[in-house]
Structures are given as structure tokens and as C-alpha cells.
């Protein structure tokens, strides 16, 4: 985009005429409308019946996410930050063995440049590199011609316990593609980034971080468009793996 001013870059006569007419039409109040009073006040948490209310966000998040067919690595629990590297390495090793050993190639893993630095700081990069080629998504110039890695690793900006969702604030097309194009999506989530409710998640998106899309992802992509049978892996990832650490 060239202009970044507050005036609309495309203003045709037609659209302003249409605007004026629509608004004028809406302002006609032929029928008196009673304003509804703000009476219902909702509790912070969505209470669920029949199950003990999860005492904390972490347990709530894990149980919600598992219901959405997310998998946790290595198990549905919080791991220590310093075992992040081992967990990832173990997983990649298992994939490397089953998947690509025949042609003796390492599995390609897509990652965001900034997050690669983060992994390097946590000593993760060194540990996992024997099993995979880390490809920075920013290096991909043309998505149409680059064969896409089957796996991506991405840090979630925050997560929502109420719905078991992960939130990514994306700044570039490449970053956003990271969550959608690979078959398997590994998400790292810091326990302190867990928020209890949707309201808090929306509030959190008003941060200083610059981003262009706020993606709230609840489980692997799915469709029920053929005979209403649920299948995982429509256009996005078929598997969503979460590593929850503190």
C-alpha cells in the first residue's frame, strides 16, 4: 500500500452516494423501538454442568483443547522450560524415523525467523537440528513454487482456557501461512500466556505489538461437508500439537 493516511484511498462518487442513502434510510424510525435494558450480567467464566469446574485455567485449557482433538507433547501437562528442547527433539526423532529415513533426508520444519532466535536462546535449536532442517518462512519468496514443509513450529501469543484456543498475532503473510499450510502444526505455549475467557483474549489483542491478523485457532482444521461426517484436516493442518511449558 502506498498511502497510509486517514483519508480513504479509494473514494468514488458512487460509494459516497450509496453511503448517504443507506444511512438516511436507516435513520428513518417509523417504528418506536424500546431500548433494552442492560440487565443480564454474566459470570467471568462460562460454567459447565456435570463436570467439576476446573480449578485453574491450565487444567481447563488442557481439557478443552483435548476435546478439540489437539494433542499435547509429551503428555497433557506442563513441562519445564528447560526440557522443551528434549521434548521437541524426541518428537522430531520419532517422525524422522517413521517418515523420511528411507531417502535419508531430514524432515523440513518451517519456522519464523524471530522465533528461531528464541529457540536458539533456549538451546533448542542445537538439540533439534540433527533431526530436521529448519527453514525460515521469511525466506520463502513464492509459496506457489516452493514445496511446503510438512511441519511447522510456532509460538502462540496467548491462549484461551474457556475454549481451548490458541491465538496468533500475525504480522506478515508468511507468518500466517505458517499456521495453515503445513500438515502438522507444533505450537509452543508459555503457561503464563493462558487467559481464562474470551473477553480477556479480546482485550489482550489491543497490545502494542503490530500485527495484521489475529488468528484464534481451536483445534486442527476440520470439515463435515460430506455427509456430515467429521473429518480432520480440511485445508489447514491435520494435526495440532501443543507443548505447554512454564
Amino acid at each position, binding site marked *: 500500500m502506498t498511502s497510509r493516511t486517514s483519508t*480513504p484511498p479509494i473514494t468514488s462518487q458512487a*460509494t*459516497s452516494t450509496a453511503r448517504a442513502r443507506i444511512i438516511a434510510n436507516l435513520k428513518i424510525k417509523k417504528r418506536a423501538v424500546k431500548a433494552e435494558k442492560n440487565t443480564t450480567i454474566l459470570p467471568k467464566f*462460562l460454567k459447565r*454442568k456435570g463436570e467439576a469446574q476446573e480449578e485453574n485455567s491450565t487444567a481447563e485449557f488442557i481439557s478443552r483443547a483435548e476435546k478439540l482433538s489437539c494433542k499435547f507433547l509429551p503428555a497433557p501437562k506442563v513441562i519445564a522450560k528447560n526440557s522443551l528442547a528434549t521434548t521437541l527433539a524426541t518428537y522430531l526423532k520419532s517422525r524422522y524415523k517413521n517418515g523420511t529415513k528411507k531417502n535419508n533426508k531430514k524432515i523440513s520444519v518451517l519456522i519464523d525467523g524471530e522465533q528461531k532466535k528464541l529457540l536458539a536462546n533456549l538451546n533448542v535449536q542445537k538439540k533439534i537440528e540433527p533431526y530436521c532442517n529448519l527453514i525460515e518462512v521469511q525466506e520463502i519468496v513464492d509459496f506457489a513454487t516452493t514445496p511446503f514443509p510438512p511441519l511447522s513450529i510456532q509460538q502462540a501469543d496467548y491462549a484461551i482456557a474457556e475454549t481451548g484456543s490458541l491465538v496468533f498475532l500475525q504480522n506478515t503473510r508468511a507468518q500466517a501461512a505458517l499456521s495453515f499450510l503445513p500438515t502438522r502444526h507444533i505450537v509452543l505455549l508459555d503457561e503464563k500466556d493462558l487467559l481464562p475467557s474470551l473477553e480477556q483474549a479480546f482485550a489482550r489483542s489491543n497490545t502494542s505489538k503490530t500485527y495484521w491478523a489475529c488468528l484464534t485457532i481451536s483445534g486442527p482444521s476440520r470439515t463435515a461437508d460430506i455427509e456430515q461426517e467429521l473429518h480432520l484436516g480440511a485445508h489447514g493442518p491435520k494435526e495440532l500439537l501443543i507443548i505447554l511449558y512454564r
Partner: protein
Amino acid sequence: MRAVPSLTHSASHSSQSFQQKSATALENSTLRAALGKAGAGFLNARKKAFEQIENSANIKARAQQARARAIDNMPELLLQFERNAHAKGVHVHWAETAEQARAIIINLCRGKKRIIKGKSMASEEIELNQALLKSGAEVTETDLGEYIIQLANETPSHIIAPAVHKTRAQIDALFRYHHENIHEAKIADNNPKPQRKSSQLIEEARQKIRDKFLQAEVGITGANMLIASRGAALLLTNEGNGDLSAIMPQRHIMLAGIEKVIADDADAVAVLRVLGRSATGQSLGNYTSLYGAQPLQADGKDLHFVLLDNGRSEMHSSLWRDMLRCIRCGACLNHCPVYTSVGGHTYGWVYSGPMGKVLTPLLAEASRKTSAQELPHASSFCGRCVEVCPVGIPLTSLMRRLRERDFEKPLRPQSLKAKFACATMRLLFAHPKLYRLFLACFLRILKLLARGKGHISYLPTATAWTSTRDLPINRSARAAISQ
């Protein structure tokens, strides 16, 4: 897109009446099988989702309040939305009619050939695909259901599950034809292949559509909510196709009806809490994304909102304003005994079921067709739609008002029988003595016809009813008869 005549279901957009089309649909056993499979799944999922939460009545009330607030303050909120979007360099276009909306979008796609689309009912409403194809562009629907009906050259039969009327066998044949160029007849004769599993079909579509995503120049999606306080829009999908359509191409166009506006985050959350639950039983759609949240700066992306009126501002000051609250969850369709028997195409336009019966006669383009005016009459008023609507739209009352309008200003000829019945009623209601006399006689006749049973199997003036079922006599009528 090539159309395969042998596979198309031609009921949509034909000039037949609702009654004729439903008769055809009821005899179509494939359609009935497909609808039967879908029905129970939707109902159970929704029921479970609301049963699991403790304060579901409150949650629905809150959603209704959020939508009512949006509709009451629509002009202010829409202008606020535009201001906030402009401040971030996002373009906003206004379209009063379907034609204007098409022109705006075609203009935005000028010089670009490859276009991908996420599911958008508004785009179906303005028949965007046909217009884009005519302008020389290549359009691919990316929602699996929409993709299927695009291959079949049909319109959606459900607002949430567009291809709900198709069986796996039909989809298999469609894919064979379009992906491998094998015609249906040939499959049966020379080249018998086993019918593929759903997962195989999904994988095949995924590969085909993936290429389109990667090469697309423009992505067109709908929007579920336009958040006025942010000047940004929420887009919900399960497959991830909406986001890929939004992310991959350089230009992203979001088309939405003006009623999609919502005041702020808190109201948006209130609606989100009921939308997924009512539609598919999910606590939140798989992908809930906010576009235009911050100033655009990356990658030379640009974002355009196209706000469509097409009869909505007219509804705003009419007796049918409540309909603007609709969040297109589809619950009323899934619970409608008429919809689940005849399917969406019988309604003759893109919106079907109870919400379609109210919207179709009111929205500009379709309302000119006389067949649209008969829709509100095709209801037994059982009221299940009103019970399940998460934003409390009194669908049956709205249909009744449409019937009244239709009677006062008939767009279609009144039958002699109807005229006679109304004249009689008017006479009776104006003269209490006559009314009482009539009632006494009528009850006596009913008593004779019931012959001591609790129901009537033959009623001379209502044979359309009694030829297929008995007319039950309720308790008060029974008491009156026995007096």
C-alpha cells in the same frame, strides 16, 4: 466451470411454485437420504452444547441484547466502523444494491485473473460468481461444500452446510468428472471404480484447492461480524479456507451485509458464545480471525470491506426489523420440519428454512419474484424455529406479518377459496350472535365427524390436511363438543 447436466439438481431458480417444488423434492429419495443423515447430527450437537453450560438462557439473552443494540444503533455504528477502518488504511465501499456490489468487486478484481473465495452467503445473494466469470476471471470456491456445489453448478441448500443435499456417491462422481474428466456414465460401464471414502475425497479436494490458494491474486470472503469500535471484521470457518483466502492473495475483499455490524468486543464475544453452539455445537468455530485489527503495513497487502444493503436498510424501519438480528447460525433450518423434508433448493433462493421464508420476500432482488411471496405461507407455525433461535427472532410472527402484507397488497392472485373464507370470517367476527350460532353448528358437525374418537379423519373443506393425516381435536374443543 463446466456444468454436468446429468448431475445438476435443477430445482433451484426455476419458476415452479414452492408447492410443486416440494412435491418433487419429497419424491427424490437421494435427497431425502442425504437430508436424513444430516438432520439428527446437527440437533444433537446443538442440544449437547447448550446443555453443557449452566447459564445458557442468560448467554442467549446476552447475545440477543448485543444484536439488538447493534441494530438499534446501526447508522452510527456503521459510520464508526468506516471511520476506524479508514484510520488504518483499510478501504470501505458501500453498495446499495446487488448490482453496485458486483460492480465494486469486479472493479477491485480488474486485471487480476485468479480469484479464490471463502464461504459467503452475501456473495451468493448478489450472484457474484456468475458476474466474475463473465468478466473473464477464474473463480474457485474453497469451502468444501461450496466447492462441491460450484462443480455441480448449483446454489447452496443450507447456509452452514451448502452441500448437505449431496450424497457421497454424487460427490465422488462429480470429482471424477471434474478432476479426472471421467463421465458418470463411463464410470458405471467401462471403468467401474469402487466408491471412495470421504477422507479420500477431502484429500483430493484439498490438493486441488491448495494450488489455487497459492496462485490466487484476490481472495473474497464474507465476514461474520463488523466490530464498529475496532473497524475490523471477524471471520469464522472450520476448514481454514477463509483464512487461506484472506492470507495468501495480495488483495483481500470482505463482503458483508450492513446488519453484520456489532458495537464492540464485549458484544462480539456475546454473539460468538452462541454462534458456534447453535450452528454445529462447537464452543467456538475452529478458526475465528480478526482482519483489519491494526494498520496494514506488511507485504503490500490491502483489505477492502464491501458493505451491502440490498434491502436491509428498508427492513430496518419496517415491521421486520427483528430479522436483522439474525446471525446466520442455521439452527432454525435444522429444526424446521418443512426444511428437513424438502431441503433448501425448494425455497428457490439462497436463504432457506424459516429465516429464508422471512428474508427472501424482503431482500431486494428476490422479492420481485412472485414465488418469493408464497414462502411465508408454507409454514405450519409449529414454532420450533423461534424456540431455538439464539437471538430470539420471532420468526413465526414475522411470517404472519408477511402473510398479512401479502393479503393486503397481494403480489400474487388470491384464490377464490381464500377470498370466500376471509369474507365469511369477516362477517362472523363482526356479528357475535351469528358467530356463536355458527360455532354451535360447527362443533356439532365436528362431533358427528369425530364419531367418538379423539380425531377426525375426514373433513370436507380441509381435505388437503385430512388426506394425509388425522385432524386431532384438542381438549378445549372436546369439552365444547360434549357440552
